[in-house]
């Protein structure tokens, strides 16, 4: 059995300066109530690791607008001019990572691998400062694992022990991020009794989930 917590309680657990893996892709499959709660308590200096920063007023874009974020690790920020403006003004820093590398780095962090050997980025600005390893005639970049203090996960539904299901394009980074947060907070649309999600439908086993956001009022 997991504990259901309020958005306010979740925001309280996450201190200023924390690193957060946040699920979602252009605001789809993003834990919106958790984000709203972080904005409401005025969190500062957060590191956000996510595919993108969505748009102003949408998903992670709200954290950017609120000035809650000091560092972003993402594959794309081009649809959020505020992120770009704050980057240029120095209010936040951005590490751009190829999308396929980003998801593998998070997975590596979550499953205890020492890094990712990917051909993506070789011969591009992405390789700067990174070790290159040649294996059987192909050059690979050694990319480092990513973990974070918290993973904020959006799910279609969960059961009382935290087993999670996702749907359609709202999967995106969520299943992988659920492996790599030191504490994992799931924000499901529905909360079902134990047994209502059959074993084969579970995509994130409940043992990975520490807290479930209570039902929407």
């Amino acid at each position, binding site marked *: 059995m997991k504990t259901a917590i309020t958005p306010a309680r979740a925001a309280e657990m996450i201190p200023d300066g924390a690193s957060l893996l946040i699920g979602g892709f252009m605001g789809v499959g993003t834990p919106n109530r958790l984000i709203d709660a972080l904005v409401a308590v005025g969190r500062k200096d957060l590191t956000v690791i996510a595919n993108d920063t969505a748009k102003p007023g949408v998903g992670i874009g709200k954290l950017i607008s609120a000035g809650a974020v000091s560092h972003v690790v*993402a594959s794309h*920020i081009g649809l959020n*001019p505020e992120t770009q403006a704050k980057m240029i003004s120095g209010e936040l820093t951005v590490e751009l990572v190829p999308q*396929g*590398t980003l*998801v593998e780095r998070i997975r590596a962090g979550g499953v205890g691998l020492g890094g990712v050997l990917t051909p993506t980025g070789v011969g591009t600005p992405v390789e700067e400062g990174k070790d290159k390893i040649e294996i059987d005639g192909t050059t690979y970049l050694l990319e480092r694992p990513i973990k974070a203090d918290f993973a904020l996960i959006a799910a279609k539904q969960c059961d009382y022990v935290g087993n999670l299901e996702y749907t359609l394009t709202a999967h995106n980074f969520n299943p992988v991020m659920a492996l790599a947060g030191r504490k994992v907070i799931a924000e499901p649309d529905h909360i079902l009794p134990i047994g209502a999600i059959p074993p084969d439908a579970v995509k994130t086993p409940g043992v990975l989930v520490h807290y479930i956001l209570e039902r929407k009022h």
Partner: protein
Amino acid sequence: MDAKERIARRVALEVEEGTLVNLGIGLPSLVANYLPADVHVYFQAENGVIGLGARPPEGMEDRDLTDAGGGFVTAVPGAASIDSAMSFGLIRGGHLDMTVLGGLQVDERGYLANWMVPGKMVPGMGGAMDLVQGARKVVVAMVHAAKGSPKIVPECTLPLTAMRRVSLIVTEMCVIEPTEAGLVLRELAEGVSVEDVRAVTSAALILEGEPKVMPLA
């Protein structure tokens, strides 16, 4: 017929029956409109659906089913939801038959630059680096020159997207195949001469016999 339609129609002829295809945002996405009726392919959106379909009927949109730009889409019968790890596993692992991407520059080595202009806003590479690195066939679909200034150049001056020779360049003027020996001019649009192309191309072009007339079926 405008330049973009001509490009999209020509690229559509490259799409083979039963394959998995990723279309970039913008011009490349137009390709789906011109597929021959007897060609059935699966479109992949890198945010997580195989079997991407057209826009949904008014009022039928679902917030959890979007394309990589965040726009509402449908899914065809037989579609599969996948997470970002599987999505880029398919891309990097050589399971994606073809990707169509826009370009800023392509050079004599067949290398593509399409993700950043130094000194300008940097949107991030998103999935582009993985797509160019991993897709079996990479087609660059772009307007031939930028206001008369060549985009097909001896060597890219913009940061590369990947050190991988792309498969084909399709513009409104011609079709060019990058090869070991250099850029081979394969086809010319009706009414366009070799000299017309050379006038807006700074890269050396190789002629292997007479270029064919670019089909637009």
